């Protein structure tokens, strides 16, 4: 009796009339013990495998590690000092900024007309939908390996193809040349994130009733004006979401750079994510410094997401 009264009071609802109170264990209201069975495993897993490693990363960022991975003691802010004074960091940060902004912008700009096309009914529409599913479903590693082969300086097909079209005069070392590899990796990221973005915008388009556009056209608006002033503003919701998700996804993206940049030494083409991974596990094998970079990464994403969500709410 008492427990039921208490839960009702907490939920801020009026206590049910005496007659209903006697029904054995109303199915809608859960007791803590029952709750443990229903949502307990999910809470346990997320706390243990998602939340705890975050704490463990922060802790490791203040510890001093031996090359073997054993903890030698506390390090204060030494790990942060090490990564923040790394001469490669400015370059890595600039790479990350370009990588995220260009990747998200190009993906969005390509996905908008693509969604418009998918929303039409025509012969070949189904083929396009299937073709768009493939880069989405295929593993990023496999797709990146495919790109690595196509872009190969000696044996890849891109160079002979572009030369036959007279776009380039002599073969380009796409993955070995500092001036091209960044853009080639961004193009790969766009290729992989395009399908989800196009389908998400398409589902937004499907939510717009036909008569809205028809009304505008009856009023004499051109196709472009209808799109610009009627359709596009109505796509704001899906666009906000895809920009947010793509930004997080491209920021965190690891396999594209890992696969395409694998033969190049140094940190010239790394983002903060691959930089962090290399420090922790590949080049320095310094878990502490890697953890410090990981903490900075989470802070960067966290602050950006918070600012973005706040702005999106205010608008």
């Amino acid at each position: 009796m008492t427990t039921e009264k208490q839960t009702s009071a907490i939920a801020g609802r009026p206590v049910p009339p005496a007659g209903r109170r006697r029904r054995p264990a109303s199915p809608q209201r859960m007791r803590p013990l029952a709750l443990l069975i229903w949502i307990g495993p999910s809470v346990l897993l997320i706390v243990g495998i998602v939340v705890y490693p975050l704490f463990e990363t922060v802790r490791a960022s203040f510890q001093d590690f031996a090359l073997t991975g054993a903890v030698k003691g506390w390090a204060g802010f030494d790990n942060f000092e090490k990564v923040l004074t790394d001469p490669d960091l400015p370059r890595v940060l600039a790479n990350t900024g370009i990588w995220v902004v260009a990747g998200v912008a190009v993906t969005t700009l390509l996905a908008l007309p693509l969604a418009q096309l998918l929303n039409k009914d025509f012969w070949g529409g189904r083929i396009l939908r299937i073709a768009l599913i493939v880069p989405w479903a295929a593993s990023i590693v496999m797709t990146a390996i495919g790109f690595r082969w196509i872009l190969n300086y000696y044996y890849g097909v891109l160079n002979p193809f572009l030369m036959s079209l007279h776009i380039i005069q002599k073969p380009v070392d796409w993955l070995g040349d500092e001036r091209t590899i960044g853009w080639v990796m961004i193009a790969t990221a766009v290729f992989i994130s395009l399908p989800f973005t196009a389908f998400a915008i398409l589902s937004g388009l499907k939510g717009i009733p036909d008569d809205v556009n028809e009304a505008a056209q009856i009023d004499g608006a051109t196709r472009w004006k209808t799109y610009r002033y009627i359709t596009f503003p109505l796509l704001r919701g899906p666009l906000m979401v895809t920009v947010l998700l793509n930004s997080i996804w491209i920021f965190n993206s690891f396999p594209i750079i890992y696969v395409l940049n694998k033969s190049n030494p140094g940190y010239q083409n790394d983002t903060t994510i691959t930089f962090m991974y290399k420090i922790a596990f590949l080049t320095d094998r310094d878990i502490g410094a890697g953890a410090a970079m990981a903490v900075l990464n989470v802070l960067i994403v966290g602050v950006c997401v918070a600012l973005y969500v706040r702005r999106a709410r205010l608008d």
Partner: protein
Amino acid sequence: MVTTRRLITSAVALALSVVLLSPYLVMLFTSLKPQDELTITPGTLLPTVWDFSNYVTMWTSAPIAQYMTNSLIVAVTSTVLVLLFAIPAAYASARFEFRGRRAYLFFVLVAQILAPIALIVGLYREFSALGLVDNLLALVIINTAFNLSFAIWLLRGFIASVPATLEEAAWMDGAGRGRTLLTIVVPVIRPGIVTAGIYAFIASWNEFIVGLTLISTDSKKPLQVGITQFIGRDQIEWQHLFATALISIVPVVILFLLVEKHLVGGLTEGSVK
């Protein structure tokens, strides 16, 4: 006029389809080339001799079957666990009232933002301490945890879209919550369960970073990790590499096509709220 326009639309769509499929077509053609055609400069698109035997020899050129078995064990186990944990959690959070329900849903949503790569150092430390490094069980647990949030959100949406009248009738008849879920709710939300299951399977199958970091013994490596070892070496058997890649991509694409329309809604709606 109208027909010309439609014709142009179709042509544009077909051209785009070719562009989107081109990396995979190049992989397909390469997988059918004999070894000596792989090192022709400049590169060629089509094989001059179509060598289908690559799809037989690939199995012995590297422990592909072992990698695939590892990936399959991890993906299937983790998919079963995701569904086992997500269905009751989604049902409870969609239908029942309890203290902290909003907090729980927010917690699940935030967990979705954190990717394994962001936490990889902490994960590595945690699983070292647990003695689970170089153990497939670690991949099962981590994949399950990271795919759980999306499954809960997706299934919650499915359950919320079904009126509760049938369930209420079952309660009146004295059926408990568990029986109501199994006999009434599960059959109704089957498309949602299939979608969540396929998504979890594909995510596990394609997972790379955790496998790369936590597994060191070659015979325990999942396919995505096993296959990248060949990159950067002087002698890469690209034909075998791409035969393997295609064999691993095709089933996933087919699975994906089955549930594509439910996935987009789930991915975007889950994040709006």
